[in-house]
């Protein structure tokens, strides 16, 4: 047998993720700084940040703490959630076209929140809106898994997603249609358009813990998602309890996306685009995709929110509208590419 040079050293060279992660973190920090300094009022960041801890904070500090900081943090949390959920769903369904927005999870989470609002439960108790969003998301992830989980057919998945999204949007429109007052209608429109503007720390505090639980569940499934590259039966024979894995992804997605949508409305395509962009950098390995997709999602959503503020000052464009306008053509491109690869 011919002696082939030792592979071990070379195989050990798993392309390190540090450059990518560092790059994303730096980008995220720079964007966060930019996001905080962006607005009608010029705020000297350092001075204002110091001022936040004084007994009688100056106006700029209040502006920073009450308006810009929650907006920035929420953009990061929601973007991270969408990116992570997209990566996990794609791994579970073994399908690059799975994403929370596309398969109807976002729109049904929005519907959940809208229903809570419509029937007047929003003021009933503290967590009513996020719970509405989470329940809406949960029902749909479960439904999608039931329909498209067995075979990983792209067609079934997308068609089921179209049907569910359509139905959820129709019900949301119905609520809009029957809205008792223009003010109520305006509130409902908010979930359809999607934005991180004008949120307070209350919103952040409300949803951050729920998202965090979702993230832990999703990150926990990394190994199993790797094994699922080989199909469900093989993953089982590699020692993974698939019902448990599915449960983790479904509940994790419902928590993260449901909570996100309940405070920001539908911000489309982040969960689809980000994992797709990151995949080549991690050798297409589902487990390594999770973390970088979360970072990428946070970066992209924050960048989008900055773009909205820079390019449409005054009459501010809603973030969800912008991501949909950019995301939809990208989705089309992805479909064409997938079709080519399958031939």
């Amino acid at each position, binding site marked *: 047998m011919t002696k082939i040079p030792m592979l071990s050293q070379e*195989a050990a060279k798993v392309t390190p993720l540090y450059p990518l992660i560092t790059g994303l973190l730096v980008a995220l920090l720079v964007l966060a700084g930019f996001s905080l300094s962006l607005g009608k009022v010029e705020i000297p960041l350092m001075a204002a940040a110091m001022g936040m801890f004084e007994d009688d904070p100056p106006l700029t500090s209040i502006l920073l703490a009450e308006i810009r900081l929650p907006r920035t943090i929420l953009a990061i949390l929601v973007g991270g959630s969408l990116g992570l959920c997209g990566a996990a769903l794609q791994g579970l369904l073994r399908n690059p076209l799975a994403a929370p927005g596309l398969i109807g999870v976002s729109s049904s989470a929005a519907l959940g929140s809208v229903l809570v609002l419509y029937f007047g439960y929003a003021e009933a108790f503290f967590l009513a809106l996020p719970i509405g969003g989470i329940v809406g998301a949960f029902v749909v992830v479960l439904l999608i898994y039931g329909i498209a989980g067995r075979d990983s057919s792209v067609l079934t998945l997308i068609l089921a997603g179209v049907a569910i999204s359509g139905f959820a949007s129709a019900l949301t429109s119905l609520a809009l249609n029957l809205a008792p007052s223009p003010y109520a209608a305006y509130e409902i429109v908010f979930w359809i358009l999607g934005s991180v503007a004008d949120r307070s720390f209350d919103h952040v505090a409300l949803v951050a813990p729920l998202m965090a639980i979702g993230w832990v569940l999703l990150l926990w499934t990394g190994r199993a998602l790797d094994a699922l590259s080989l199909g469900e*039966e*093989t993953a089982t*024979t590699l020692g993974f309890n698939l019902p448990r894995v599915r449960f983790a992804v479904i509940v994790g997605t419902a928590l993260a996306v449901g909570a996100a949508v309940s405070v920001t409305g539908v911000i489309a395509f982040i969960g689809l685009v980000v994992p797709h962009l990151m995949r080549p950098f991690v050798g297409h390995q589902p487990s390594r995709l999770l973390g970088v997709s979360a970072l990428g999602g946070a970066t992209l959503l924050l960048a989008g929110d900055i773009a909205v503020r820079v390019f449409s000052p005054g009459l501010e464009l809603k973030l969800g509208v912008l991501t949909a306008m950019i995301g939809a053509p990208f989705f089309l491109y992805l479909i064409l590419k997938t079709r080519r690869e399958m031939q």
Partner: protein
Amino acid sequence: MSLIEGSAIAIRFGDNAILNGVDLAAREGELIGLIGENGAGKTTLLRVLANLLPMEHGKVRFHGDDIQGISCRAYAREMAYLPQAAISHWPLEVRHLVALGRLPHRDPWQRLDETDLERVETVLRWTDTIHLANRTVTTLSGGELVRVMLARALASEPKLLLADEPVTSLDPFHQLQVMELLRDIAKQGACVFVVLHDLTLASRFCDRLLLLHAGKVMAEGPPEAVLTPSNLKVAYAITAEFGEREGAMYLLPWQRLETVSGEDVEKK
């Protein structure tokens, strides 16, 4: 003692009894061919042995323990399953795909260590795929893909390997290569079950054959004892030409009998 032992295995899908009282036992070091007509229950039996299907009746014991009582993770360290037409859903690099076979031995969050990498290298050499280590699986030919998937299955150092039609889509060269490999794996001490349609390969390479027919083991034993004209007539409804070369038997399916349904043949 047997490594794996099945008794009175019965499975039905709806009204169809797929397996109806199958008994088997196999030791380490054996290469066992599962043969039988389409729908005879070969794949189902393999999936039962892999603990992927709940049985209606019967028991499968591994090292004397009921496999339904073994955790799927513990069983994963002992058994590897290679499904028919195995594919990768993502365009992974070959070395990463093969390293998936190490998952049963790694704790959550634990990275691939030196032992894992050495094993990956060993199985890549074994299956003659080391030159493909950095290739993307989607760029492989059918023969290369089967060998890579086999390497993945071997990476976990299984005592029991269950391979479902690994050679069906291969050209003759690669059929022989994969069969030789399976024989080597058995010689190294593993117990290998392989589903085959090619009766000559079954007869030449397997230590023992299990002929399934109508959900039962119709014949079992060394290839010469199983591949008899009368068994072929009942199980496959064919006649075959037999020959011998270098002391090994070969056979060539020659003619179809009236019907492929075994029951009708039996009635005549």
